[in-house]
């Protein structure tokens, strides 16, 4: 009898739901039943409400079962799941699951399909085609491809990646660096984590292309300490890529060098800000630097440095492999390509949805997400992390687009969507935003350091203080937010007012204010 191929994710979300325990029981029971199985620990498909998701290879394609608990394993074997048999946990063919079928997976094309640390798997699925193409091109041609593709920084700032690369390429220095910002601290985001755990070679390939294009020979991936599995997987992948000549002194025999190293953060949200991150890598307190000089000219250890987010680098291989036009063909307006969007919080079908720009929040939350997990109405949705605004229902049909969203005060950010049901108290969430800023502020500039603490106090006075004083305190809060927006050194203090003010504007009743003119979302 042929060996049965079973896939069980090694993604943190699956592990946190017991994937290792399920895998152990499965291996044991297969042995007891005299079945020969090959257990592949793949990345997650991103259908996170079904994790741990078990897949079995059949002549008809992979069949999915989930969410599987250790105690389900016996009945799965009895139902003949190892040959694709029916079971109450059957989800049918994985590729046919609606959530997955309607996506446009470019960056996440391999996710959950391959073994994350298998170079053979990676190359069998278009991996390293981008690097081979880049090696055949002049650096200026590679930059042009990235520019023509319209790739913008996926970390949140949306700055054109090609322009950054061009600046670093043109800078004269004995040493240049490529740094990947993998300090994914925004609540509701996990696409970086999934990439590092589920397809690490894609990130390594993207960084290698950036290095060859700009003349950098040393790279760092700054990963937050809250992501231990991502760190382990990246280190394993870097060792394999180095052994196979994809990293090291002569990339694929080209005579051009690139060395890559993982650096572990230490629990500081503000280190997701690029200059604070550089300070961290240099071994200092993660305090934000004033710009200029920009890191592209004076970055890590004072040298020209390309800094991009995980998803930005990870988007590069396919752009090189298939050409800029292929990528630019997706998206709307000046927002080209696709975005791996993360559905999180109180959502029935939470997970990873990669779609071209132009998708709407309503589609994401209802067609993909299926509404709230609690079954109650959606009250509020925060997009773009803790610094993103709460988007009112009136804007749920607006196509996702950096410019279009900015015009109405919404943030695309890193593509994280956190859904709250009607039990959410928006004044509490506004207070939390200020409180979080007070905890995480690096302390360099006053509006952020002091403003956040004063913000918590003012919100407390609005919600629990004398009702007569409320209008005055609201005015004070607005003034304070104005100072923070305009006076802060970086986005930490500069954007914390976005969730605060949007909560206040769209849900005044939660602050004890009556505002009949403003319809709450």
């Amino acid at each position, binding site marked *: 009898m042929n060996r049965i191929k079973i896939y069980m994710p090694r993604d*943190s*979300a699956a*592990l*946190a*739901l017991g994937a290792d325990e399920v895998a152990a029981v499965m291996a044991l029971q297969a042995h007891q039943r005299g079945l020969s199985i090959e257990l592949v620990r793949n990345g997650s498909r991103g259908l*996170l*409400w079904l*994790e741990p998701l078990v897949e079995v290879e059949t002549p008809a394609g992979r069949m999915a079962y989930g969410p599987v608990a250790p105690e389900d394993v016996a009945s799965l074997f009895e139902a003949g799941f190892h040959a694709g048999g029916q079971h109450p946990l059957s989800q049918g063919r994985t590729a046919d699951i609606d959530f997955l079928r309607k996506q446009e997976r470019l960056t996440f094309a391999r996710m959950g399909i391959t073994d994350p640390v298998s170079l053979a798997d990676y190359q069998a699925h278009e991996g390293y085609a981008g690097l081979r193409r880049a090696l055949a091109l002049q650096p200026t041609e590679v930059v042009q491809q990235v520019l023509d593709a319209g790739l913008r920084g996926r970390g949140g700032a949306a700055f054109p990646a090609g322009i950054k690369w061009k600046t670093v390429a043109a800078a004269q220095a004995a040493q240049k660096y490529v740094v990947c910002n993998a300090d*994914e*601290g*925004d*609540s*509701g*985001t*996990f696409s*970086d*984590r999934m990439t590092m755990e589920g397809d690490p070679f894609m990130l390594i390939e993207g960084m290698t292309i950036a290095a060859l294009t700009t003349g950098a020979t040393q790279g760092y991936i700054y990963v937050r*300490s*809250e*992501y*231990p*599995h991502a760190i382990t997987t990246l280190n394993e992948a870097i060792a394999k890529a180095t052994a196979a000549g994809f990293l090291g002194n002569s990339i694929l025999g080209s005579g051009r060098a690139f060395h890559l190293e993982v*650096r*572990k*953060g*230490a*629990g*500081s*949200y503000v280190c997701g800000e690029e200059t604070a991150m550089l300070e*961290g*890598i*240099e*071994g*200092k*307190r*993660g305090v934000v630097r004033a710009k200029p000089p920009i890191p592209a000219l004076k970055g890590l*250890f004072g040298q020209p440095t390309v800094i991009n987010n995980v998803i930005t680098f990870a988007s590069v291989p396919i752009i090189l492999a298939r050409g800029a036009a292929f990528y630019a063909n997706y998206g709307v307006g000046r927002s080209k390509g696709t975005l791996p969007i*993360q*559905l*999180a*919080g*109180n*959502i029935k079908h*939470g*997970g990873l949805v990669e779609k071209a720009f132009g998708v709407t929040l309503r589609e994401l939350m209802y067609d993909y997400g299926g509404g709230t*997990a609690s079954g109650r109405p959606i009250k509020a949705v*925060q997009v773009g992390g*803790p610094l993103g605004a709460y988007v009112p229902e009136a804007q749920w049909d607006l196509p996702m687009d950096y410019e279009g969203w900015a015009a109405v005060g919404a943030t695309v950010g890193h593509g*994280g969507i*956190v*859904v*709250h*049901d009607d039990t*959410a108290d928006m004044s509490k*969430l506004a207070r*939390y935003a200020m409180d*979080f800023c007070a*905890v*995480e502020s690096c302390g360099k500039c006053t509006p952020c350091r002091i403003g956040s603490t004063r913000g918590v106090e003012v919100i407390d006075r609005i919600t629990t203080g004398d009702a007569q004083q409320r209008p005055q305190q609201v005015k004070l809060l607005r003034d304070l937010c104005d100072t923070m927006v305009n006076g802060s050194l970086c986005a930490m203090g500069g954007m914390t007012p976005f969730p605060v003010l949007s909560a206040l504007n769209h849900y005044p009743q939660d602050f004890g204010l009556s505002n009949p003119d403003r319809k709450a979302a």
Partner: protein
Amino acid sequence: MTAEMTAADRAVVQRVLAERQAMPGALLPILHDIQDTLGHVPPAAVADIAEALNLSRAEVHGVITYYHHFRSEPAKGTVVQVCRAEACQACGSDALWEHVSQKAKNADVTLEPVYCLGLCATAPSMSINDKPYARVSPNKFDHLLAQLKKVA
């Protein structure tokens, strides 16, 4: 800063310094290695680290106290980090936090906040001794803690 280190702890610090001090930006990797081995960064190690990296003790102390991850004293018992961020709040993490706080009073538990474990679609989440857990209800937490006690 008059705290003493045991000879064994000092040997660990010296080994880590010998391995790492030549790295560019060596301080964070050194602090991680020490904490991963000893469970914390002993205050008495600050002077050794400062000397090896040609920094002032104030600079080293400043870095240790800036980052939430580093601890200057060993943690007590089981370390439970409950995510306090928005996605988990939307799924009842405040109640979970309250529940664990109550437990922590009587059990050998160190409770700490954490701001996002990247498990936001399977909230609420926590880590127990660095192992991640998702969709944690108060009941599930009690069960996990009891299991851990059984193993120990």
